[in-house]
C-alpha cells in the first residue's frame, strides 16, 4: 500500500498541477484569448488558432528533463521548432504566397509601387525607437520588422538576428496583422480630408499573360541583385509566382498555394505559439516589443498615407490616399481596409484593385528591407 502511495506521490511530481505557476496560467489564458479571437471575431483564424493552441501547448507545466519541451534538444516539438529557428518555414510560406498572389494590379499601375516602399518606414521607425529604448542593433532590427506586417518575414529575420526575442516578435507581428482593420482605420481617417477620401481612381487595365510571366523574373533579378541577403524570401516569392503564371506548372502552383502552405502555416503557427514559454516570454522586454510593434504599424500606415498625399502635390492624376495604408504587406487585409473606408465615404468608389498594387509591392518591399537589415546587422 505504501508503495502505491509512494508511486502516486512520485507521479504527482510529474503532473502539470504540481509544476504549475501563475505565469503558466497567464500564458494559457492568452492562448485561449487568441483562439477565441480567431473563432469568434474571425481575426486571422488560420494564424491565431494555431498560435493560440501553441501557446497553451508550450505552457503546460511539466517536469523538466522529460525531453518533450520545445527547448529540449531532440524532442518532437524541438524538431518541428527547427523550421522556425533555422528559418526554413518562412521561405516555404513565401513560395505559397507567390503562388497565390496576383501581381496584375501592380503591373498595371507601376506608379503605385513606391507606396509599398514608403510604408516600410514603419520598420525603420521602430528600429530607431528600439535603439532609443536600449535594445542592441540586431534586436532593434528584428523588432522593427514587425512594421512590415509580414509574419514569415518577421520570423525569418528574428531567427537570424535575435532568436531569443523571436517568440514575442512573431506573436506581436501576427497579432497586429489580425488587428490591421482596427489599427489602420482611425489613422487613415485622421490623416485624410473628406475631399481626399472621395478621389476616384481609374480601374486598372487588363494585364497580359506575358507581362505576368515576365514580372516574377524581372522582379526577382532586380531585387535579388540589389539585396542578395533577401534571396530566400524573394527567390521563393517570385518562384511561386512564376509557377502560378507560367501556365505550365499548374500542379506545382496548386500544391505550393494549397496543401504545402497549409502544412507549413499549421507548423509555424503551432511552434511559434509553443515557443512562448512563460519563463522566456513573460518579461518587460516582451511588453516593450508589443508596444514598439504597435508603433511600427502606426508609423507604417501613416507613412503610406502621407506619401500618397505628397505624391498628389506633383501629379495631375490624383491618387486616393486611402490606399496608402495598403503599403504594408498584410495581404489582402490592408487593401480590404482601403476598400471599406473608401466605400464608407463614397459607396461607388471601389479602391480594392488599386489598393492591391501597393499591397503586393509591400510584400516585396518588406522582404527587401529584411534583406538589408540582415546584411547590415547579421
Amino acid at each position, binding site marked *: 500500500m505504501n508503495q502505491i502511495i509512494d508511486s502516486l506521490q512520485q507521479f504527482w511530481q510529474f503532473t502539470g498541477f504540481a509544476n504549475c505557476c501563475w505565469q503558466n496560467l497567464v500564458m494559457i489564458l492568452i492562448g485561449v484569448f487568441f483562439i477565441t479571437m480567431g473563432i469568434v471575431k474571425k481575426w486571422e483564424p488560420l494564424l491565431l488558432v494555431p498560435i493560440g493552441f501553441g501557446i497553451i501547448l508550450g505552457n503546460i507545466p511539466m517536469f523538466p528533463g522529460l525531453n518533450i519541451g520545445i527547448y529540449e534538444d531532440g524532442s518532437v516539438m524541438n524538431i518541428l521548432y527547427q523550421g522556425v529557428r533555422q528559418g526554413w518555414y518562412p521561405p516555404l510560406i513565401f513560395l505559397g504566397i507567390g503562388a497565390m498572389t496576383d501581381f496584375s494590379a501592380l*503591373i*498595371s499601375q*507601376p*506608379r503605385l*509601387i*513606391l507606396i*509599398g*516602399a*514608403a510604408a*516600410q*518606414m514603419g*520598420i*525603420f521607425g521602430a*528600429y*530607431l525607437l528600439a*535603439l*532609443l529604448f536600449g535594445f*542592441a*542593433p*540586431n534586436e*532593434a*532590427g528584428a523588432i522593427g520588422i514587425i512594421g512590415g506586417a509580414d509574419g514569415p518575414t518577421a520570423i525569418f529575420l528574428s531567427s537570424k*538576428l535575435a532568436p531569443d526575442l523571436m517568440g514575442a516578435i512573431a506573436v506581436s507581428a501576427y497579432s497586429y496583422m489580425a488587428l490591421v482593420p482596427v489599427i489602420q482605420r482611425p489613422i487613415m481617417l485622421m490623416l485624410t480630408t473628406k475631399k481626399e477620401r472621395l478621389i476616384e481612381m481609374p480601374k486598372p487595365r487588363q*494585364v*497580359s499573360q*506575358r*507581362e505576368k510571366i*515576365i*514580372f516574377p523574373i*524581372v*522582379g526577382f533579378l*532586380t*531585387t535579388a541583385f*540589389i*539585396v542578395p541577403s533577401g534571396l530566400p524570401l524573394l527567390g521563393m516569392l517570385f518562384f511561386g509566382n512564376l509557377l502560378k503564371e507560367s501556365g505550365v506548372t499548374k500542379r506545382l502552383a496548386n500544391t505550393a498555394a494549397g496543401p504545402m502552405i497549409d502544412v507549413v502555416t499549421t507548423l509555424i503557427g503551432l511552434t511559434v505559439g509553443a515557443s512562448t514559454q512563460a519563463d522566456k516570454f513573460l518579461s518587460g522586454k516582451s511588453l516593450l516589443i508589443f508596444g514598439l510593434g504597435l508603433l511600427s504599424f502606426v508609423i507604417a500606415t501613416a507613412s503610406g498615407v502621407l506619401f500618397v498625399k505628397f505624391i498628389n502635390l506633383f501629379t495631375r492624376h490624383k491618387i486616393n490616399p486611402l490606399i496608402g495604408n495598403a503599403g504594408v504587406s498584410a495581404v*489582402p487585409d490592408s487593401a480590404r481596409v482601403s476598400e471599406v473606408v473608401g466605400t464608407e465615404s463614397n459607396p461607388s468608389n471601389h479602391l*480594392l484593385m488599386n489598393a492591391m498594387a501597393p499591397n503586393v*509591392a509591400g510584400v*516585396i*518591399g518588406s522582404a*527587401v*528591407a529584411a534583406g*538589408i*537589415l540582415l*546584411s*547590415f*546587422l*547579421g
Partner: protein
Amino acid sequence: MKRILTSVLLLLAVSLVLKAQHISDLVLTEVVVDNENGLLDENGRHSPWVEITNSSQGSVSVGGCYLSDDPGDLKKFMVPKGDLKMKLGARQVMVLHPDFPLVKGSTLYLVSTDGKTIVDSIDIPSDLPVDRSVRKLAKDAKKVLFITEAEDAAPTPGKMNSDRQEESGAEKMARTDRYGGVLTLTSITVVFGALLILLIIFSITGGFFSGKFKRSKTPSDEEAAAIALALDMEQDGDIYAAIAAAVELYLSDSVHDVESYRLTIRQGEGSAWRDKRLTFRKLPK
C-alpha cells in the same frame, strides 16, 4: 542507353569536381613545431600541431586527407575517417597532431583524399622559435585570402586567423551608428531604389510586354453584335442561367467561394451520393 550512360558520367564528373572544390577550400593556417608550454594533445602531451581552416561557406570533411612534409611520400599521415569531429563547418578551424615529427625548414603539405593532389602547403621557417607559430592570416574578410605572415607569432590554436577582430554586423553598427540614423537612411534609399527600378522597368516596357505594339483588331459594333448572336445560338441557355444564379448567390453573400473576389463555376458532375455509378471501379480499356 547512350543518353543514360552520358548522364551518369556527367553526374559523376560533376560530383567529383564538386568534391574537389570542397577540399580545395581547406587551408593550412598555423603550425607549431616546438610546442613546450602550449596546446596539449589527446594524450596530455605537448606535441607539435597543425591548424586547418575551412575557408568556404559550406562544410568540408577533412577525414581521409593526408599531411606530409615529403613530396615523394604525400601519404605520411592520414586524417582519421568517419569521425564527425573531422567535419568542418563554414569558416571553422581544427587542430591536428600529426604522428610524424615536424621539421623546421621543411614544407608541410595538405593532400587531398586521392593522396596525390596537393591542396595547400606552408613553409616552416628554419628559425621558428619555441612556442611560436608560423601562420597565415586572412587579409580579406570576405574572400578569406590567407597570406603567410613574415614574422612568427603567438599561437592561436582553434581560432580563425585574421588581421582584424571578428566583429558582427550588429556590433559594428553599435559602434559606428549608435542612433541608427545612417542605417535607416541607407535602408530607405535602397528599398525605394529597388522598387523605383521596378517602377521604371514596368512603366517603360509595360506597353511592350503587354503586346500593345501588335496591332489588334477590335470588332466593330456590327461584328460584336454578330458574335453575340452566334454565341447565343451556340451556347445552351443553361450556362447563362448558371452564371446568373452564381452571381446572384455571390452578391447576396449566400455563397462564398474559396478565393475572395473570384467566382468559380465548375461543371456539375453529379455526386457519388446520388449517382452510384460514379463509385464503380473503372475497367481498363
